[in-house]
């Protein structure tokens, strides 16, 4: 009894994961420190900026208790530059943000959800892992905090289409033993492409499998009959008839 869900994560699940990303807000109300399961939240003192998880920021924004500061990469100029890069280089994606200097050996290695890649002091020149879903969510909930939300929306749309087209193109080389570099692909894009790519690979595998099966059957038969050369194959068939 399998769950009727496609393999991998569904878009709501990816969005849920994205809500762990830290974003910068400017609170408009004091709030005491909170001790949460996910970790403590510092007290909010307006107009001091604070970094809080996206889910908390969205909650405060909806209640008009905070303004969200969009990350620097989510503004027209960097997005235009990235879009240019994407259209210029047809076969690779724009590189992901540079990792900070490797921490000393005794701490856990950093991974994207725990890196401040979407706060106000993040790098402006690269798209982080959760760029698409974060951008969509911020544009939906806090469009008034953007300087030029319309062009940001347009650029995000453009980026998404260019990159999806690349992903689909990549499938062409996914034949036997083919490879396709996916450095810099975001979470939502992976989730979207997963069904398609795995479907294609599965199909290819099936086609290959049936051929394989035939070949294996033939081999077995040959072994059972004790023949080794194909030269006598015709005779054998004749005999069967």
């Amino acid at each position: 009894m399998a769950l009727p869900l496609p393999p991998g994560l569904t878009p709501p699940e990816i969005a849920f994961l994205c809500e762990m990303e830290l974003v910068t807000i400017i609170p408009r109300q004091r709030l005491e420190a909170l001790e949460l399961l996910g970790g403590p939240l510092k007290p909010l003192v307006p107009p001091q900026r604070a970094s809080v998880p996206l889910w908390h920021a969205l909650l405060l924004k909806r209640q008009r208790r905070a303004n969200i500061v969009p990350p620097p990469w989510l503004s027209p100029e960097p997005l235009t530059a990235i879009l240019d890069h994407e259209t210029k280089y047809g076969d690779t994606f724009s590189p992901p943000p540079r990792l900070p200097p490797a921490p000393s050996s005794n701490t856990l290695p950093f991974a994207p959800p725990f890196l401040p890649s979407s706060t106000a002091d993040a790098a402006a020149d690269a798209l982080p892992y959760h760029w698409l879903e974060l951008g969509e969510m911020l544009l939906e909930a806090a469009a008034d905090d953007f300087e030029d939300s319309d062009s940001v929306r347009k650029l995000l749309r453009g980026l998404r289409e260019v990159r999806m087209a690349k992903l689909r193109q990549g499938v062409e080389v996914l034949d036997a033993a083919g490879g396709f570099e996916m450095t810099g692909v975001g979470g939502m894009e992976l989730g979207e492409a997963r069904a398609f790519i795995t479907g294609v690979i599965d199909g290819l595998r099936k086609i290959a499998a049936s051929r394989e099966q035939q070949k294996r059957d033939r081999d077995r038969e040959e072994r059972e009959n004790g023949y080794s050369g194909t030269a006598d194959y015709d005779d054998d068939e004749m005999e069967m008839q």
Partner: protein
Amino acid sequence: MAFPQQLRGKQAHVDGPTFLTYTPDGKKLITTGVDPFCRVFSHGSDEEPTNVDDCQENNTAVAAGNDFFITGSEDGTVSKYSLESNRFEEILVRSTLPVRDVALSPDGNWVAVASDELVVYVVNTKDMLQVKRLRDQNRSVKHVSFDRTGTRLAVSCTDGIVYIYDMELEEPEMIKKVESMIKILEPESGLSSKVLWHPDGRAFAAPTGLREMQVMSTNDWEQQRSFKTGHSADITAAAWSPNGALLATTSSDLCLSLWDVKTQKLLKKYDDIKATIQAIAWHPTENTLSYTQIDGRLYIHNDFVPPEHANILQKPIQPAPFFHDPSEGRSNAATTALANGTKYNLPERRQREDTVDSLDSLLGPEFQDDEQDEEMADFVVDDDGAGYAPAVNGHGKRTNGHLGPLESLSKRRSYTSAIFKPQLHEPFQPGATPWRGNRRLLCCSLIGYVSTISQEGDHHTVEVKFYDEYTHRNFHFTDIYLYDKAGLNDHGTLFSCQPKDGNPARIYYRPHETWTTRTDWRTDLPAGESVAAIALSESYVVVTTSTNYVRIFSLFGLPVRVYRQKSSPAVTCAAWRDYVLTVGNGPVGGDGTAQLLYTIENVKRDEVYQSEDIVALPPNTNLTSVFFSADGDPYIYDSDGVLLTLLHWRTNGQARWVPMLDTKCLSRRLGGGKEESYWPVCVARDANDKHVFHCMILKGSEKYPTNPPPMLSEFPLEVPLSSSIDKAREREREEDKETMSDDEDGSSRKAENQQQMLENQYVLLSTLHSQLSETLSHTRPTLDQKRDLVNKEVEIDKTLLQLLNFECAAVAEDRGMKALELVTLMKDTNGKMLEFALKVAERYRKEVLMEKIRDLQEKKLMGGEDDGDFV
């Protein structure tokens, strides 16, 4: 004397739209219309006009220089004609679609062509191969208009947007898109959406859909006053008088109105027009207005301005009708600074009137000089603008126009100048902006901001907005006193207004909320005393005045102290709890500017900490803001974008200015190209207990924040040690390295970079530490503060340890001296830091260093706190 003569139209062209222009010298008037010829009228003569034949038909625009003129036609050609030979010269542009307007730059070198094509061509009149193309508009263009300097071009598009281009560049760039001003018009309609640049160069006007003439300032693109024309149909033409003091408008309701620019009142309305006027032109010097009608007639209206107002036309260039003239200055104080190139007329010095029995009035007009010179006036024709035939003003004297503005722009005055006039720093209120349109910011702090909006009918609306909307409630009130300064903190708001109409200057304090009823109070200053700057702290109200008094009140309006400031005139003040900082102009330095001096005192203890000490500013730099940080340390921000703090300010003679942040070196400006400045608000701690500089980011060349102000930004403090360009190059190189190979060189550079960061952190931390320890030694420290001090010490030691690590990791052995120095610098409050240092040395097997550290440890244990022993 001129008698009111019957205005007689001349049939210049056959029935149809007709246009006209004067040559810049006012000698000739050129008309063009449906017929295939243009007519050139000589000004002041009744002779038959000269016809210029072989023109195109259906001409739609004309522009003239002194010796040539240019017409545009519906068949798409723009032709140039000579005025000397009255002949066709050449075709400058051939457009595929009808030409709608042409405009000539003031120097006559460039002609802008508006046609039904989307592109505006700007062609050199001498060399038609030099073409600039303006392509930003989406629809066809109706009008084009150069400003008085020829550096900007306004393009009125049929999509209802005005595009302003900067023409100084090789490739003109659009600098502003003005939406919702002009009406959306059909390309062939006879209505006008033309932008009229005001002669003073700081504003332009354009007809709006509401049949008004809306004025817009060009420094901040804010709508200023408008002329409510009252025409019953849309405006078809309008023109400023040559000195900008009058405006003529006309519409298809057959009225021609004359407006006074200063009051925006109607002076005269001519309603006996026979047909719709298509174009208006003022004569460049005389009281004559000419217009052409849609039926092809030309009217030359001498004495257009009625005699009772004719003197307005004689005035020098008048300012455009602003709500609040920007030249009023930031603090509303009367200033003598002039806008660039504006001729200044003293308000109290009117046009000199005839005295009784003066020579002129006795002799009568026929003996006046200019009458005699009439024939000789044309002797020298200034046709290339070189200035050898200087303009003559109303008194028959040469103007001082060739001298430039009164104040020379360079700070250095010429030695030949007989009068030595020091340059004083003008008083300002920290955080206040000048008027921008009808709005202005009075004060901004970390609590919120105070802004004021001037309303019709001589009152303002003051708005107080808080960042923390739930602790405090936003409020606004109608303000009849016209408050122009404000202070805001956690407890209340302070306002002050200038003396006006016999009312003295007034201070108004309004607490936010108290446990009793709210006790706001007002105090009047003595008559004749105006407010230079005010400051509000948690316990006092400080007012510095024009008479150099510093008046200190308690929060309940009780005058606590009044004294005269030693350095004068007063510039500004700031306050925090019991501390008051006042800044005034001190002695004049070698470059003719006054040095700024500050005084800090504690009001409660009645103790002066720093008396008339110098505010350290590099030459040609102004003070932009003075404030106390949230921790109570004085900070200044200068016009170079450097933030400085005062270290050891509680000890007399020990104070010095330490740069804490140079905004030119900010990492966000590394890439270059980003033009922005910062409006300082405060220095406070952020969520991670680090000191940050709160400011508003001003985009482009803006100097003041808009209202409502942008969101506050935070920048960590960073003592300027290395220049940002260095860092940028470093980073670039690093990236190159990363992409190529991670070789030894790259990693060592990275280490160097990190070391620089640590050094920076060390300097910053030790500055903050000494500031904090000073504060603690002068106040009763709280537990938190003490803990903070210890934390800071540990932080410093940690930074030193990291630096030590780098030192030891360095391959060369001979750097042990520096490593030892780092160890000796450690505060080592808990005695563990030296242990750690020992461990680091052990790890890198630096035997000698270990020995030395052990020595140091022993010395510490012995309690030998040596203050620099002479060995």
